């Protein structure tokens, strides 16, 4: 990696002030994307601002029908949290499928959602679980958060502090992993909020999105058969050597069907 200045602030204010003060700063959360990028010399920030010293970014809080997860919470902690497993088991299940053990022990919710990798798992949960993304100064609804490939509503230097998920009546996540990287080629989270269905899709497009056509038919009839009636167009979908856009569109339907079947069994 290239040389950079390293900072370890203890508050969000201090981190943001540092970001403003330095020439080309980058925030470091769990480092599961940034560290390999630095090691391959594909990024050359002048300053790396490590967020691991900010206590206020960590923690899990359950309030009524909502779960608030601090941005710095590691995937393994979400996967293993008894609290989350009780009220929002789909989120634990999803977190338990991210990467491998090493990645889950280091990677964080905020790092993943701020990065908005098109093949990350968490974004499917953010959009399907009607989450609210909080920063120091504002809140952003999930529907307004993901913008494009690695692009979110966050402003430069804005730090994601926590995400509040709504707890559905029932939900299920199905992932079709890329056989090489084990990222999501397609991941679909179907959530039933007392009949209001939300379907979050990751992997298929440039960023996570809600599959509104699927949501509509599933609101009418929450069944595997209902999914079959929906055309999932592949326009704008990702296409790479592992899966064409057409195949991804097909997989969105298959993963949705399987998630619906899981959800109905639950």
């Amino acid at each position, binding site marked *: 990696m290239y040389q950079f200045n390293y900072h370890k602030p203890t508050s969000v204010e201090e981190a943001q002030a540092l970001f403003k003060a330095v020439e080309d700063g980058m925030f470091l959360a769990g480092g599961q994307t940034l560290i390999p990028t630095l090691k391959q*010399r594909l990024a050359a920030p002048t300053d790396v601002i490590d967020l691991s010293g900010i206590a206020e970014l960590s923690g899990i809080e359950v309030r009524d029908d909502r779960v608030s997860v601090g941005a710095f919470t590691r995937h393994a902690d979400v996967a293993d949290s008894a609290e989350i497993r009780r009220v929002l088991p789909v989120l634990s299940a999803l977190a338990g499928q991210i990467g491998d053990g090493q990645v889950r022990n280091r990677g964080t919710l905020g790092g993943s959602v701020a990065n908005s990798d098109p093949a990350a798992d968490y974004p499917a949960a953010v959009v399907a679980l009607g989450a609210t993304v909080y920063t120091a100064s504002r809140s952003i609804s999930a529907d307004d958060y993901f913008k494009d490939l690695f692009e979110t509503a966050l402003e430069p230097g804005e730090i994601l502090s926590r995400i509040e998920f709504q707890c559905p009546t029932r939900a299920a996540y199905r992932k079709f992993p890329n*056989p090489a990287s084990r990222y999501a080629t397609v991941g679909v989270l179907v959530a039933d909020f007392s009949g209001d269905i939300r379907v979050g899709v990751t992997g298929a497009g440039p960023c996570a999105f809600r599959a509104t056509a699927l949501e509509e038919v599933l609101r009418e009839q929450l069944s595997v058969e209902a999914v079959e009636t929906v055309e999932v167009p592949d326009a704008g979908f990702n296409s790479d050597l592992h899966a064409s856009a057409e195949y991804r569109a*097909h997989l969105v339907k298959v993963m949705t069907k399987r998630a619906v079947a899981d959800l109905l069994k639950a």
Partner: protein
Amino acid sequence: MSEAVVQTGIGASVKRKEDLRFITGTGRYTDDFNVAGQKYAVFLRSPYARARIEDIDVSEAANVRGVCTVLTGQQMAEDGLGDIPCGWLVKQKDGSDMVSAPHPPLAATLVNYVGEPYGLVIADTLAAARQGAEAVLTDFAELDAVVDPAEATGSEQIHEGVSDNLAFDWELGERAATEAALASAAHVTRIDLVNNRLIPNAMEPRAALGSYDPGSGEHTLYTTSQNPHLARLVLSAFVQVAPEHKLRIIAPDVGGGFGSKIFIYAEETAVIWAARRTGMTIKWTADRSEAFLADAHGRDHVTHAELGMNEAGEFVALKVSTTANLGAYLSTFGSSVPTYLYGTLLAGQYRTPNIYVEVQGVYTNTAPVDAYRGAGRPEATYVVERVVEQAARELGRDPAELRRFNMITPDQFPYDTPVALTYDTGDYQVSLDRALAMIDYDGFPARREAAAAAGKRRGLGLSCYIEACGLAPSQLAIQLGAGVGLYESGEIRVNPTGNVTVFTGSHSHGQGHETTFAQIVSDRLGIPFDDVEVVHGDTGRVEFGLGTYGSRSLAVGGSALMGAADKLIAKGTKIAAHMLEADPAAVDFTDGSFVVRDSNQALTFGEVAFAAYVPTNYPTELEPGFSEKAFYDPENFTYPAGTHIAEIEIDEATGVIELVDFVAVDDFGHIINPMIVAGQVHGGLAQGVGQALLEHGIYDEYGQLITGSYMDYCMPRADDLPDFRVDTTVTPCTHNPLGVKGCGEAGAIGSPAAIMNAVADALGEAVAMPATSEKIWRVLQNRRTA
């Protein structure tokens, strides 16, 4: 025999000696060696598949703090270094020599694949070397690249003097007779195959640590080599880095090779050259990205095959036409892999009387292609076993029975094939029968039905493979174009206290020689297993060697040790006879003791060893000392063979294949350590599963490697594999003293065809390797929409 030797001798599943240090982090790999004041090298690599180097501006790099110097291919050429030679000269159809394009270790004027090194930056730290490499400004004039081997002959010429990019147009077998037999055959099965390019991915990437002592003139190179003596020979005789007696090559613990560490590479050559030129000790360790780009790749064939049968279903002729991608340069064994290690295996286990194969070896602007676990034999097995399976389907014959019907029978050995080999022994039916029983062949229709009820298509596929191992009879190999003989050396040095140090020219980089070779020596000499130390991988300690590849170590290197042990026993017999005042002809060596026949007079091996070093009561006609060496040159190849059967299930909705069961029954001859053999088979099978289902080295149309990391190049992982069920049958090799055949490559040779035949069985049609989910889904989808 003592109980201890029974538990650790030939045939015992002794736990591997070397594993203690490997799993406790006390192994020493090349990168673990450090010399005070050493410098670090980073290579300048071509970003283009084909380009002319117009100018290299190193002025900025030289100013980077910590950079010592920048060396380029131009300077290497000025120093008069030779090209990296190809070790095997193949003759073409018309009798002319193959056309081998010059391969300078560092490119001076033209670069011919992405990642080709053309210089190196040497610095105090790795970081400074990297920084320096980025500061080198190279002006390239990009040229059109040739990437697709199938189109190489009609494309732009890559190398001066190599028209049509054709390195060789080679043939084996009788063309006219084969074509005539095909023309009159009752049925001909035709098949087109692609054998996908693989990237080896040894766990330890290549590395080198080179130093030069101006006082002694000695060059020392620590490096990740499967055959350090061959490396020394080539670097001294051909590349002329240093004279052989002033060059020591040490290949210490090496973390996997699979063939990729046999070859003479640019980087290791450049490191030792640079060490002498600069007087600095220089370390280079490849990162994974470099390994993807610049390790020799494997396979990459395009093939058309035709199998003719008579009315009864007997194979009457096989004709095979292959285009083999050699990459940008002929690597060390690049020419022999798709010719003599491929065409000679096309008889398989069958009595096919007429076989003809022609291979066009073509240059492309991709990384050089060379031996990778199996080396030619997986490609041959894939052709034979895919076409035989296809034939069975076309004829409506049971694939197992059609195979059995055409197999060479035990009474036909030794069997001369129409493609130059003589199989010494085997019993193919017995391994077929065992495998069919293990998989419960008769129960398959019921399993298929049960799978269908769960939305899965189940398929079963066989592969009855043969391989030629134990490379190789030297005279035959040299006659066919090899640049060296392929014997092996072994030395047993008995210490005065009776324990022994064994020196072998074989090289262990995962095989477990320290254990198996100790088993052989301990068993033969009747001494405790723990009294045997095996030394390998150092030209300064081992007299000579040809290294480890082609499943040769046990059959050739192990046999050499048997020869050395026999010489020790012969000398020991004379010493013992003298000491016991007996006729040497009346002294037997049994269970570690020299015994006067029909008496209770005996001396232990240790007592005789001590006497040889402290010769108080010693025959005057004998030299003191107790150390013997032997070279072993095999009479023939060994021919491991067996049957692999795969069962797969396809998820109709996604096209995902699950390998649900896999049975491998192999005949490796006698087995020294069944646990190590099972491990070798499992590892080979994992690589075969990788080739069949997951792995594919892909270049884009511009010659950029797009599978250059684990994000895109799909290695097999534990959860991709079933619990392999393996068993062995035994027909001992007839021509080596251990009766062994070799087991290192069988898994990777037999399995791809079995899996792909199972896929074809499930799907009703074949797809190309790797059988990715999207490929399968497309077949099913096209059928649904048709």
